[in-house]
């Protein structure tokens, strides 16, 4: 179970208090009614779903109620940072030890083919 740092409560709290809210930094176009079908599809339907470093939104729904952003490694499930909603995409801080996860196909399968 994840432990998530809420940038508003300034504290680590259990995942039970949070709700995931999708990819972060997808701004609703200001001129939304004027955008093309392709632009709308890009904005509303398409998500990167990246493996590894991901920027995503969470809401501390059973806490302070605030939405915020998080940079998380989806492979290790490690939160690299969380920051308040409305802030621009933050660069990921340098971490000392590089995390290599065990649970890749390569790692679990050895070099067997």
């Amino acid at each position: 179970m994840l432990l998530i740092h809420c940038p508003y409560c300034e504290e680590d709290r259990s995942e039970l208090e949070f709700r995931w809210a999708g990819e972060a930094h997808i701004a609703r176009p200001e001129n939304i009614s004027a955008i093309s079908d392709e632009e709308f599809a890009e904005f509303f339907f398409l998500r990167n779903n990246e493996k590894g470093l991901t920027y995503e939104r969470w809401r501390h729904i059973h806490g302070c109620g605030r939405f915020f952003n998080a940079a998380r490694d989806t492979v290790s499930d490690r939160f690299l940072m969380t920051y308040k909603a409305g802030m621009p995409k933050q660069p990921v801080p340098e971490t000392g030890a590089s995390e290599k996860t065990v649970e890749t196909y390569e790692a679990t399968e050895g070099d067997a083919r």
Partner: protein
Amino acid sequence: MVDSGANFGSDIAARTLPLAGFHGGSSAARLETAPPAERISLRARAEDVGALSGALGVALPVKPKTSSSANGRTALWLGPDEWLVIAEGNGGLMQAAKNSGVLHSAADVSHRNTAILVSGPGAAAAINAGCPQDLSLKAFPVGACSRTVFGKVEIVLLRTAEDAFRVEVWRSFSDYAFGLLCEGAQDASL
């Protein structure tokens, strides 16, 4: 046959509390239902906190997870622009907030919430049957408060003394919360 007439209007409706008649707890964690209280959900921007604090007679805390009490009123920090203000009895909170003259939102939630008082040496353990927060005195000192989860419902937790908590819960979740607290209190006494 009931006659029409003004006499209906003059019959003041009686209150029925959501947890009327509930009893439970253990030697380690006593459970009591709190008397009715007035509550508002108060929302305001940072620059208006001072004026509202003055009008309410209780300082709205700005530090997360903290509360303050004065003049029979307690203000709980729930979020960066959100407070739950609780007053004993009928405290005129809506009017007091209005008197501040500053931009805010106050919604009367006196009847939305009800409260369960948990006290005794096992109070924290009883609540930890369903609450994932660290309730040690270091992490959750007297006066600390937080919206959080308790089993499958949401609560607002306030530590009123080293061994006492107030559990605020929406009325329709209150019998669930009370039931789980009973089991937690039982387990805390073992």
